[in-house]
């Protein structure tokens, strides 16, 4: 055999032909792409719009209807706002759609005639109408309510108007983030306790009451937390302060080297594992052309990353991480955790208090005299300063500014005699009192001296028409598809399993929890993940109802700056990373749930 191979003409050699074809294919593809890129370069030169990323740092000069930064300082902040708006819908939507979908899926399997038929009817309607039509319909439904008028001003329990919906809500206070982290921590702790007790039960065979244990610890920890214990979480701010200081001290080159090193390490390990697997008895250490290609590809990718890291791209990325360029530095709205740069132990969250309009129509305030100083304690409602208010009917009206929270004053951000706009922070306060969440009901108020009305911030929860339409549309649409997944998953568990469970004497609830659902979930997870991906992608329809998610914000940006290509690249990177994140979470659970086969 070997001898004949020797005399094979090269163009009759399968291996040669295979690689020749692929190289020609690759070259052809690259030349086509190169051709289009050349076109783009020429076209952009002709239109005098040089493609660049500078606009990310410039002030876009437009406002966003809702979100983290309604008046963004930079393009990056604007895109961040869009991204967070998108996450608001995606994350709440995934939970809501899963719960609703599970109920609908079980209803579809119900033996009750009316329940089964009505859920099937809902399924057939929602599944067969385009999502966009549904979203438009929900929007039109809310918009058909009257606008907010003068006689609407006042307090309500629930209110619906063409401006949106408002309902009572537990609003976040300054301590809310600490409390949320605390809640997460105690859930994890009680979960661990449950598992620990179950382990003892399985090992020793005695009754250990795992559920009682975990619920008792949860309740105890919750009570401790409710009466101030949650402040222990403040230690995270302390640690985060050191970490962030430390990270900023390290030179940029360190990050470039770190990422390159990690890539080389991963590449080495992957390649080594591959070579080892080839040396197993089955493969007998024979390397064919595809294997060589795989190894070469690994090396090329690693080299490419290393070269990229030490080019201007890598320098830019490191600069972004270090935060050299201020415009690119973002705090992502979690100041409690990431502002502890002064390395002080933060048992209490410190906030920048913004100037509020003390009287109607106030636009600016000029501090006449500070009545507080750093280190002093203030209680809510105390007079902290006297000031002139400008923008009202009477010019330079003298007013008193009152403390919004109880706490210790950390620093004064402006000197007396200086004038600032409403909404700008003017002193720093360490909040020592106040519940993490405060219950309140909605309130309709006038916007300044204009004739327009709005739902007041911090009073109940108000959601805009766009948010309502896109959220309801996406949740309902996904829930319907999830209900099909759930139904298929439950049906996939064979009847013998539940019969076996019943013969063991399990009750119905325990049967579902211990026998049917664990097996159904295994079938359900991959299609469920697909539905979550679809939900995340469908939030992009928010642009149709003027909800400022990342696509809508991007469109506003390129209309302003003319940079269509970078915006498109940002969309692509953003959605790709969201898709990757969701699918890797699903894959993780999928692996965890997999039956361990012999």
């Amino acid at each position, binding site marked *: 055999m070997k001898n004949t191979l020797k005399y094979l003409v090269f163009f009759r050699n399968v291996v040669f032909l295979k690689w020749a074809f692929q190289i020609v294919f690759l070259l052809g593809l690259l030349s086509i792409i190169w051709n289009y890129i050349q076109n783009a370069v020429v076209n952009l030169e002709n239109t005098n719009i040089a493609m660049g990323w500078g606009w990310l740092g410039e002030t876009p000069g437009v406002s966003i209807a809702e979100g983290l930064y309604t008046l963004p300082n930079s393009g990056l902040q604007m895109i961040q706002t869009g991204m967070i708006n998108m996450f608001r819908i995606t994350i709440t939507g995934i939970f809501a759609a899963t719960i609703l979908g599970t109920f609908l899926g079980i209803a579809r399997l119900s*033996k009750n005639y009316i329940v089964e038929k009505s859920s099937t009817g809902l399924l057939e309607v929602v599944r067969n109408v*385009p999502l966009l039509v549904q979203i*438009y319909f929900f929007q039109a439904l809310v918009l058909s309510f009257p606008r907010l008028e003068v006689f609407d001003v006042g307090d309500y329990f629930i209110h619906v108007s063409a401006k949106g919906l408002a309902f009572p809500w537990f609003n976040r206070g300054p301590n809310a983030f600490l409390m949320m982290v605390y809640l997460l921590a105690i859930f994890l702790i009680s979960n661990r306790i449950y598992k620990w007790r179950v382990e003892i039960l399985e090992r020793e065979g005695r009754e250990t009451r795992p559920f009682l244990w975990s619920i008792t610890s949860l309740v105890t920890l919750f009570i401790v937390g409710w009466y101030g214990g949650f402040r222990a979480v403040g230690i995270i701010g302390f640690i985060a302060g050191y970490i962030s200081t430390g990270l900023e001290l390290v030179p940029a080159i360190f990050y470039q080297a770190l990422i390159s090193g990690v890539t080389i390490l991963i590449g080495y390990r992957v390649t080594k594992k591959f070579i080892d697997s080839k040396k197993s008895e089955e493969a007998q250490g024979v390397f064919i052309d595809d294997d060589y290609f795989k190894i070469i590809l690994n090396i090329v990718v690693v080299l490419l990353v290393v070269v990229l890291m030490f080019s201007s791209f890598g320098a830019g990325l490191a600069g972004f991480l270090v935060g050299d360029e201020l415009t690119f530095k973002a705090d992502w709205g979690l100041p409690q955790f990431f502002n502890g740069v002064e390395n002080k132990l933060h048992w209490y969250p410190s906030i920048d208090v913004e100037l509020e309009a003390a009287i109607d129509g106030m636009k600016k305030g000029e501090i006449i005299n500070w009545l507080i100083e750093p280190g002093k304690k203030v209680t809510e409602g105390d007079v902290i300063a006297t000031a002139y208010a400008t923008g009202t009917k009477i010019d330079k009206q003298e007013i008193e500014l009152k403390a919004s929270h109880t706490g210790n004053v950390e620093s004064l951000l402006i000197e007396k005699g200086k004038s600032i706009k409403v909404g700008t922070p003017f002193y720093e306060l360490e909040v020592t009192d106040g519940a993490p969440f405060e219950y309140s009901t909605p309130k309709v108020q006038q916007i300044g001296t204009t004739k327009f009305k709005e739902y007041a911030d911090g009073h109940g929860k108000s959601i805009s028409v766009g948010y309502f339409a896109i959220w309801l549309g996406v949740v309902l649409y996904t829930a319907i598809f999830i209900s099909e997944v759930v139904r298929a998953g439950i049906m996939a568990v064979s009847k013998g399993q539940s019969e076996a469970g019943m013969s063991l004497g399990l009750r119905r609830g325990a049967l579902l929890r211990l026998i049917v659902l664990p097996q159904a979930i295994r079938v359900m997870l991959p299609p469920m993940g697909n539905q979550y991906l679809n939900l995340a992608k469908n939030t992009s329809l928010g642009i149709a109802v003027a909800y400022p998610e990342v696509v809508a914000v991007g469109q506003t940006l390129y209309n302003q700056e003319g940079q269509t290509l970078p915006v498109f690249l940002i969309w692509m990177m953003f959605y790709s990373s969201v898709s990757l994140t969701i699918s890797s979470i699903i894959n993780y659970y999928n692996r965890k749930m997999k039956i361990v086969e012999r």
Partner: protein
Amino acid sequence: MVDTIKKNIKAVQENLFSSVGSSILTIVTSYLVLNFFRGMFGFVMTSDKDWLSVLNNMQLYMVQAYPEDDFIRVWLSVGLTFVFAGLSIGLWRSEDRSNVSVMFDRLFKAGLGLLFFTIVAPTYTSYMGNDGFVITEEVFSSSSRLRILIPTLVITVGFFILKNLKINFSYNNSDAVFFYLFIPVALIWVVKLPTIQLDQNRERIIPDPLMPIANSTKIPWTIIFVSFLVSYFIGMYLKDKKRVKNVMSISWFLLPLLIFSWIFKKPQIDMGEVLTGDIPIFVIFFALGLATVLLINNPIFKKYFSLYLGVLAVLTIGGLFIGIPMLGKVCLLLLSLFTVVVPAVSTSKEGKRSLIIIWFVALVTLTFLLRGGASETGIVVPGSSIFGGFSLTWLLAIFGTYVSFPLGVLLALGRNSKLPIVRIVCTGIIELVRSVPYITWLFFASVTLAVFLPAGVEFNLIIRVLMVTAFFSGAYFAENIRGGLQSIPKGQYEAADAIGMSPFQKTGLIILPQALRAVIPTLVSSAITAFKDSSLVTIIGLFDFLTIGKTVIDNQSIPVNFVGHQRENLIFVAIVYWIFTFTLSRRSMKVEKRLGLGER
């Protein structure tokens, strides 16, 4: 009688009140469903809804601004589709028969349902007026309730009696289709609908007078119905001819092409181009195909056959990038595909003859369609495209599938290939395209794509949308087809190798037919998704069916003011989309059952 009642009561008890939980669920769900129905009924019936905004704009919905002088072309398109449908129903006439008493039973149940809902329908409904005050009005007076109740009661009792007579008469299921079509066509002649009339001051006369539907739809629909019937009988007559069935299947594929390139478009043909361009190309390629078929058994030609195929392949790919006429490019592609199958089919004289006929017909059709497609349209409309409303939605849905399906097959084959570079590239394309929502690709088509094209080359927005749709739907199709490819057992590949098939023949004749057959249901559901997704073009400003309902009618103030009637129109749009997607999904379920795919 008593037994029947007892049996029914028992059935109700078992289905609805088997346990306490079940009873609670029954009561809660019935309450919800009833309230939903009452709410919807009130919503539809209140006087602030103007359903004439839907009825009066039907023409706008269907063809947007297509000129009235050329309406015969629209009717021709619709009629041709119905003729084809009639022929197909006749050709594939099923032998399934239904008993008439089963139908009476169904009608009796429908009557009962109607009675029930007429009784529970609300008399008064409240809605919020523009000033924010709640208005209560009578939407369903007792007299109109009685006017519906009494005839329904009589009919229901009639069906009950008919059902219990147990008439032993059955009818063919396919024959029933023409009866279903007969009812709406007959109703067009009888029913009068409210129509908008304006007085001298161009003010609307209220209440709107009842008028018969204009002759513009009455006569065409009748002609269409008659030709449907005739074609149904022709189809029945030709039922046993297998070749006719094959021709029919291909014609269904070509029909949209014919409609969109010739009938709807009214192309202005430049005879000079036909004589200097089309006919010579046609003659050359026909001669080439003819020579291939005739020479295939020639030993010298056989020796260099693979070389010939290689040259053709290179020419086809190269042809895409050089400035030869479109017809030449497509003919080259077709010739390469044709040459691949020639050796396998032209073993007998019979096979050779049919190959030549097929080649001739294919070339004639291709030349004809491309000439129509490439010519300027003779229709003058305001706006950039002669397609608008429902015709645009269909164009996007059908052509979206046409362009994305072949690309999907290619991508799936590439992703399943043994060649690593090809596999990586195809996987990359599929995953990249799928990870980004469709709307961003539409924005790419509407704003960014122009940047990548050479200076001076410009495409209509519809074409650009079709270009990105090809990739987007193609990636989804590819994933479905890949599932089918993976379901093919390895033995099939080995068997094809064993009888000495080339890779092309193996893929085209053995693997793909089986793989595609296995994934028909998923492909149909992907096509349904593509149809629903076509509504997204409304965001980038194309005037599709949804845009007409959502924006155009809502902004209409001349001659009649329809501002603020968006909800009615959106409901109508939803119903139309629902009818098409629901029918399609039900048909695909039936096909799935017939192929026995669910049982595997």
